[in-house]
């Protein structure tokens, strides 16, 4: 049994090394956020230091940081709710009343994701300008919800397919209307699936950068835009940037960790059960 024990120890070591290597950049950023600005740029890099919360205080004291954070919350919540409102009836209809065209509709919806955002950047920018939607939260919500809609429909569809149609059939016999069937029977049954879908949509909208960078400047700018503004050379406040970044990614990282198993089902299009 000895070689087996050694093989397992080696396996554990390789596994942990690989995991730490992947996580190291995030860890390093979090560590940097607790350093002073001088320690943050020290070479050789400082590993042991007296942690300070100064950077977090400085970031949170800046009124604009909270404004960016509020925009991020508003945009990801708003887009998710809008996408769910559109997608739940569609997924319900396709899952329980499939027609010959259901498969085509699903594939077509997915194919709209193939239209690269850059291909339509110019018209969207000009449309948004003339509609007064540039740099507004509403404008970004519309854009983000359209871009997650196909994924949301697909994910809900795959969750709804798992509900035995007999359950809905029975309620229909008892005289439930279409809407009652959806809200009183289906939604409670599928709460975990809908929650996972909402979470995926929130993650995607929270991290969305292309439209945020191109359609917003100040008023409706999200945390992605805020962090991007540190890319200029004068943004050499690494410790503060790290603190701001840590705050920006923490909620989504925790969401992602909590829901990774359900996310896989939605993202894998039935390739993984």
């Amino acid at each position, binding site marked *: 049994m000895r070689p087996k024990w050694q093989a397992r120890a080696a396996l554990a070591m*390789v596994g*942990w090394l*690989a*995991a*730490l290597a*992947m996580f190291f*950049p*995030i860890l*390093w950023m979090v560590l940097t956020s607790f350093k002073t600005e001088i320690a943050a740029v020290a*070479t050789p*890099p400082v590993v042991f230091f007296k942690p300070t919360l100064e950077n977090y205080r400085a970031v949170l004291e800046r009124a604009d940081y909270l404004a960016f954070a509020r925009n991020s919350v508003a945009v990801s919540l708003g887009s998710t709710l809008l996408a769910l409102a*559109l997608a739940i*009836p*569609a997924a319900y209809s396709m899952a*329980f*009343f*499939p*027609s010959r065209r259901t*498969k085509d*509709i*699903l*594939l*077509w919806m997915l*194919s*709209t994701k193939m*239209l690269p*955002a*850059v*291909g*339509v*950047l*110019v*018209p*969207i*920018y000009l*449309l948004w300008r003339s509609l007064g939607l540039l740099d507004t939260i509403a404008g970004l919500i519309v854009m983000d919800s*359209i871009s997650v*809609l196909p994924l949301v*429909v697909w994910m809900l569809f795959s969750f709804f*397919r798992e509900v035995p*149609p*007999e359950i809905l059939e029975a309620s229909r016999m008892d005289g439930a209307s279409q809407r009652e069937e959806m809200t009183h029977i289906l939604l409670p049954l599928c709460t975990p699936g809908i929650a996972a879908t909402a979470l995926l949509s929130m993650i995607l909208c929270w*991290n969305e*950068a*292309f439209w945020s960078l191109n359609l917003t400047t100040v008023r409706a700018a999200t945390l*992605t835009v805020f*962090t991007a503004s540190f*890319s200029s050379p004068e943004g050499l406040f*690494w410790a503060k940037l*790290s603190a701001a970044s840590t705050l920006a*990614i923490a909620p*989504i*990282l925790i*969401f*992602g960790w909590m829901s990774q198993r359900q996310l896989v089902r939605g*993202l*894998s299009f*039935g*390739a*993984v059960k």
Partner: protein
Amino acid sequence: MTGTKPARQKRSFRTVPLLAPSIFVLFLWMVVPLAMTLWFSAENYNLLSPGKNSFAGLGNYRDLLTSRALWIAMGNTLFLVGAVLVITLVFGTLLSVLLDSEFPGRGICRLLVVAPFFVMPTVSALIWKNMFMNPVFGVFAWITRSLGIGTIDFFSSMPLLAIVVIVAWEWTPFAVLILLPALQSLNREQKEAARLDGAGPIALFYHIELPHLRRPMAVVAMIEVIFFLSLFAEIYVTTGGGPGLASTNLAFLIFRDALLGWDVGRASAGGVFAIILANIVALFLMRVVGRGLEDMR
């Protein structure tokens, strides 16, 4: 559709009002901007000289096709997509096989490995740009100096590779997220039987695990290609497309033409190229996913 139950076929409700909103929104989203892009691409239209629009015919396309910028951007786009795709699939598979084996703490390792996928792209790009690849204060600069190689300015000497590294780091976790559960769904008995028949770990991987991963890998490739064709934030934050055009992809070229050069006509023609490129890739990918839908139940 062999398992379809009769209840599913009974249509006692009108389904059109349920489906219509989603289809309408997506249809609008597909048709209106597409038509506008096509229209603008045939116009001389610069936002800096308002009211001077005129019909350009194929002028914008001729300009683009004869400019070096388009071909460099096309090449960079395909290189980015191809390189990151290969890296994420190879490392994603290796990490998944590793995390599928049993060792103490593998649950925590799994969480650590998937973490980069949830980091917003602007933040990941900045982490790498500042804390690792900065030629003066970066961790890499410190390592290369300690080794006596001197410093390497990654973003000016190998900008495209630097971006590949960043994007691969962000998306390898995605491959793990999909491939690891796929591996875990593999029948344990089948693996045990193969092992008893004398298959070593390598034979096991090639003959049992790899074929099982083919479908999930196709899905990973599809989603990644969708995102990589429009790669933008990582370039915007790090190199700004430079030096010169060295790290400008199609997305960034259009952005430069449109929002920095205000040349709507030229940017739209670029957009048409981006759409054509995406459709060639999509045609192939949709077939793979369509096949997946066939045996979904």
